[in-house]
Each structure stands twice: as C-alpha cells, then as structure tokens.
C-alpha cells in the first residue's frame, strides 16, 4: 500500500506546525469533544455555554410530533416504493432531528435550498408530502411551488444548490433585507447538502462567494457518515465543520440526532446571517440509518454493528424519554401523535396511488417561458402521431 496515513511518521524537516489532523484527531464515532449537545441519547438535558436555551413544553412536543410524522412519511414512502408505487425513495431515517431542528429554526421569509433528502425540512416549510412523493414516483420533477413556501425544488446534482443559495442570498443583500433589525424583514438563506457533496467544486466555490460577499447564507451539512458506499473519511480527514475555517467563516458541529441542539445552533446561525454577519457552516453530525436509497444495499459496505450503535442515539427516542420523564407528555399525547401519523400514512398511500400520470404531451410544456415555433411544431407533430394510434384502436 503506497498511501501514507496522515499523522504518520514524523520527519525532521522544519515544522509547519502540526497538521490539523493531529490537532483535532480524525473524525470520531461520537462526534468528538466539539459536538454541541443539549439532549443526550439517554434523554438527559445537558447545558452548553454558548448555545443553551429554554424550550417550552409546547415546543418540545412540537419537535416530537414533527419528527414522528416525518419518520412516518419516510416509512410510508419506503413501503410505497416496495410496492412499486415509487420508482425510488431517498430515506431520511435517523436524520429527523437534524432536519426538524433546522426546519423549525426558520422564519417565514427565510429561503431554503434542499438537496434530495430534506423531507423533514419540507414538512416544516409546509410542503405537502404528497408532492415529494410525486418526484420519486416519476410524475414530475418537483410538484410544489418554491415561492409558496420559500422552499426550492430538490436538486439532484449534488452541491449545485449551494451556489443557488449563495446567489439568492446576494439578492437578499441587494434588496436590503439584512441587518435592518426588523425581524420580519431580515432574511437568511439555507443551503442543505451532504458530507459527500462537500467534495464538489461547487460547494467550495459557494463558500468562496459567500465569504467574499459576506452573504446571509447558512451552509447546513448533514454529515450522515456516508455518501452511498463511501465513508466520510474519503471526503475529509478532519471534522467537516472545520472546512469553513479555511474560508474565513465559522463552522460548528452539532449533534444532528439532538433536535434541541440542532434547533438552537441553526437558529443562531440564521440570526448571524440575518444580522449581516455573513455565512456559517453547520455540520449536523448524524447517521444514515437506512440505505442510500431504496435501490441501495448497504450490507455490501458497512457493518451492522455501526448501525446498531447508532440506534442507541435515535433522535426520536431521546425526546420521548425526556418528555415522559419530565411529565411533558402522557400516553394520550403519544397515542394522539401515533393516530395522526397513521392518518398521514393513509392519506399518503391513497394519494400516491391515485396520483395520475402526466400527459405525454406535457413534456413539451415549460421548456421555455416563451415557447418556440420549433418546439410547438414538434409537439404538434407528436400529437398528430399519437392520434394515428387513437384512430387505430
């Protein structure tokens, strides 16, 4: 093996100071000492010197509800895919806290650029989950109106949307919607992306543009440890949040399975952006409990042991323990959420199955805002062709 392991044998060449790998050590299973946490896997409320905050019972129950419902969307969709109703599904199992924490921290005027797995954020934005299913069913490429919820369409080319978010944030600056002090006006933009995506040129260029213009954008990276079959170590040999330091803006690592911490940290990062203090990188340290998508087979590349140990850090379980232990939720409450989830599941199932296929000719629609004669002729030609079949049937 020709590769040298980082932090290997020291030579006696003059020093460059220690590598960052040595300073921080390689990424650790437990997220390392820098992991910001407010609620432990055991459901214990812990305090943090900078990001601590109080949560009302209602807020806590709200987080719980959102996570349970989001998980139900995910399980339902997975089942629908198994039954042939969806072509594919990108599961979020295990990432509910990261997404609900990030989603709940938003204000209405903020704008979100998701990747393809942000079903929980979509939920928080009020996007009808059936619309998410439409994309994976193949009836459209995103059936929601981005402007209705300030939630852009899913982006499948990994990393591309981080530049869109940065540009949008530059637009926000030009509109004067940063640093006015008006909480209903000052606007932040969020770019979601994965640990794998962090290697794309686009993501790093987004860091550069955002830093250069001090754009009001929060880069929210869900480090779920995997990019399909590749572990995070292939993308970065130091904790990912530190990437931001190289571009001159702050990065933090938060326990992405802790909805409280994710909420608090994201909220603070968003406020920084709205105040005109520029970009922040938030690394939500979490784990992809399921397969990459329903067509993936993770047994080929990872140990079930790892998955087991992450099960103990389940984002929902810890909130449930906390709620119960502190008398903030009783059986009735939990049952009511379950009922709501069942109801949602049912709606999704029925809605999905009855989702009509698009018309063949719709593929000629919206290629341009101002249609061309060329394409109109192509549509008409194909329409006439299709009619020859109608006739013959």
């Amino acid at each position, binding site marked *: 093996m020709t590769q040298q392991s980082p932090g290997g044998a020291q030579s006696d060449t003059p020093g460059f100071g220690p590598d960052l790998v040595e300073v921080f050590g390689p990424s650790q299973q437990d997220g390392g000492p820098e992991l910001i946490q407010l609620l432990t896997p055991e459901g214990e409320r812990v305090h943090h010197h900078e990001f601590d905050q109080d949560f009302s019972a209602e807020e806590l129950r709200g987080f719980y509800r959102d996570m349970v419902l989001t998980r139900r969307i995910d399980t339902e969709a997975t089942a629908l895919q198994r039954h042939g109703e969806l072509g594919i599904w990108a599961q979020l199992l295990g990432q509910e806290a990261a997404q609900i924490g990030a989603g709940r921290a938003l204000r209405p005027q903020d704008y979100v650029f998701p990747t393809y797995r942000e079903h929980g954020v979509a939920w928080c934005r009020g996007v009808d989950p059936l619309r998410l299913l439409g994309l994976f069913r193949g009836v459209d490429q995103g059936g929601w109106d981005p402007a209705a919820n300030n939630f852009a369409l899913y982006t499948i080319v990994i990393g591309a949307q981080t*530049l869109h978010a940065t540009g949008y944030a530059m637009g926000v600056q030009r509109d004067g919607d940063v640093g006015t002090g008006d909480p209903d006006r000052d606007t932040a933009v969020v770019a979601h992306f994965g640990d794998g995506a962090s290697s794309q040129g686009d993501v790093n260029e987004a860091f550069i543009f955002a830093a250069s213009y001090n754009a009001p954008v929060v880069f929210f990276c869900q480090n779920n440890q995997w990019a399909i079959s590749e572990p995070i170590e292939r993308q970065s040999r130091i904790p990912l949040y530190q990437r931001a330091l190289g571009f001159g803006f702050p990065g933090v690592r938060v326990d992405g399975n802790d909805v409280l911490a994710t909420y608090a940290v994201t909220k603070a990062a968003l406020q920084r952006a709205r105040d005109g203090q520029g970009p922040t990188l938030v690394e939500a340290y979490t784990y992809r409990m399921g397969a990459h998508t329903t067509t993936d087979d993770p047994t080929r590349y990872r140990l079930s042991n790892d998955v087991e140990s992450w099960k103990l850090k389940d984002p929902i379980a810890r909130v449930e323990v906390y709620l119960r232990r502190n008398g903030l939720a009783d059986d009735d409450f939990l049952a009511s959420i379950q009922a709501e989830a069942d109801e949602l599941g049912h709606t999704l199932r029925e809605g999905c199955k009855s989702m009509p296929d698009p018309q063949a000719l719709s593929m000629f629609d919206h290629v341009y805002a101002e249609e061309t004669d060329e394409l109109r002729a192509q549509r008409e030609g194909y329409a006439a062709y299709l009619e020859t079949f109608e006739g013959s049937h």
Partner: protein
Amino acid sequence: MATQKITLAKGLNMGLRKAMEDDPKVLLMGEDVGKLGGVFRITDGLQKDFGEDRVIDSPLAESGIVGTAVGMAMRGYRPVVEIQFDGFVYPAYDQIVCQVAKIHFRSQGRVKMPMVIRIPFGGGIGAVEHHSESPEAQFAHTPGLKVVACSNPVDGYWMMQQAIACDDPVIFLEPKRQYHADKAELDESATPEPLFTSRIVRAGTDLTLLAYGPTVKTAMKAAEAAATEGRSIEVIDLRTLSPLDMAPVLDSVRRTGRAVVTHEAHVNLGLGAELSARITEECFYSLEAPVLRVGGFDTPYPPSRIEEDFLPDLDRVLDAVDRSWEF
C-alpha cells in the same frame, strides 16, 4: 434622435447600459467586469455609473458565477454574466446545462430563469489556446437554452436588450474579432426586428449562404466576389441558433436550390450539420446539390500563427460555392 457611428463593442455597451437603466433588476457579473470594464471593455463605465452592487466583480470561478446568478434570478433579478473567453465557459457547463437550462421545465414554469450568458467567441485575434473557440453547438443541443449570435454593432445594441428582456436563459455569442472592427450607424429610435429571427442580409437567386457571428462578414465578401463572376448569392445572417428560424432559410433554398453553411466551430456536429439535415428534409426536391459546410476543421484550435488556415475564409467559402455548382 440623431444617429451615431458605433463599433460592436460600443453597441453592446450601450445595450447593456440601456437595459440597466430600464430595469433596476438587471445585474452584471463576471471576472474583471467592474473597474476594468472587462478585458474587452464591453462593460466599460457601467460599474462607475451603476455601482458595485449592480456590476459585480466575481471570484475567479465560472461555475460560481453562473450558479450564483441562478440564485439571483430566483430572487427576481435578471443577471447578465460575462464569461471572459469562450474556452472558459466549461467550468460552468454543469450549471448551464443541468440548472440554467432546466429549472423552468423542472418547476413546471413556476421558476423563471431570465439570465443572459455573454460569451465573446470565435478566433482570428492571434491569441493563445482557449481564447478563440466556438462552443455554440453544445449549447444549441441543450433544450431549455436559447442561443443567439450577433454580427454587427446595431444588432449588438438591440439584441442585447432583447436578450435581457427575454424570460428564458440566452447564451449570447459575441464575435470578438468584430468588437472594434467596423462601425455602423445606430438609430436608437428605430424598431428592431424580434430577437429570434434570421435576416437576409443580401438578396440573391443562385445559392443560399448561411452564416452567423464572425462569418457573416466573410459570407458578404464571398457574395460580392461571386457577384463579379455573375453568381447571385443570397446571404442569411442566422442571428438565432436555437431556436433556428428556418422559414426564411427554407424559403431561400427553395428559390436557389443550393445552400452552403459557414461557421468557425468544428464541422463535425456543428450547426451546419443540423441545418443540412433540416434543409434536406424540407427541401428535398428543390436541392440541386447537397448542403455543403465550411467550418473549422475537426482539430483542436491550432496555434494562432496558422489559425487563418483553420478558420473558414473567403476562398474556402467560394470553393464550397464552386463545389455546390459542380454537383
């Protein structure tokens, strides 16, 4: 309003200025477009007059330029981005073909993408590698993009404004060799033809010669030279490459029975291929000869000392005209 004599560079500059005056949402972005006014000075003076927020010098990353412009367009702006030279558009290629071209379609028309991507293109300026290319075919092959090429100062002025006003993304090709070459009379009070139309720039009866951007001038010279030999050549400045405006082309070929296409891009899979296919399909029984193509050879753009051999010129166009005749 009085007319004035302007170069193509000036026409483009005036067109940009007018568009910025008319619509505060128009932004310019690119490398060196600010204080320097661009390496070709097409944005000269605009940062001074419209400020750094509207004329934005960007970090040196083309994907970043186009990708952030996508976000600005989503926020309601109309970004006009400059790619410094044709050969440097490729780092932005992914954003252009996967995002810019598709977002309107992807969103079922909910998100518009009114962006202009300006590209100085073509050769003949004695430059080093990557500064003389003609990437139009690749963009024209991509549904969702519109592609135009101007050939003269007056078109530069009007087409720029029209492209900016268009709600679709437009790849705007500027023949850099012509920037400071010839002057033309601009009447700002005139009514321009629509953007996506081709134009007969010289009427003729014996052969249809199709050109765009830098080769329009060559084509005109060829027509003049042919006229001295008694051959009447109709020259069409295509102006729009996607969509193609086939009506005047087909009408012309039906009259003349012969067509030659010339462009600087490589012949293989260049615009000439598409024009040949369409003309042959539509005018099969009118054609006296196959459509002939005169373009850059299928080699990388060569060192500048031999670029004039690579580029189509008067003689090679006339040679094709002769070959068409001999069929």
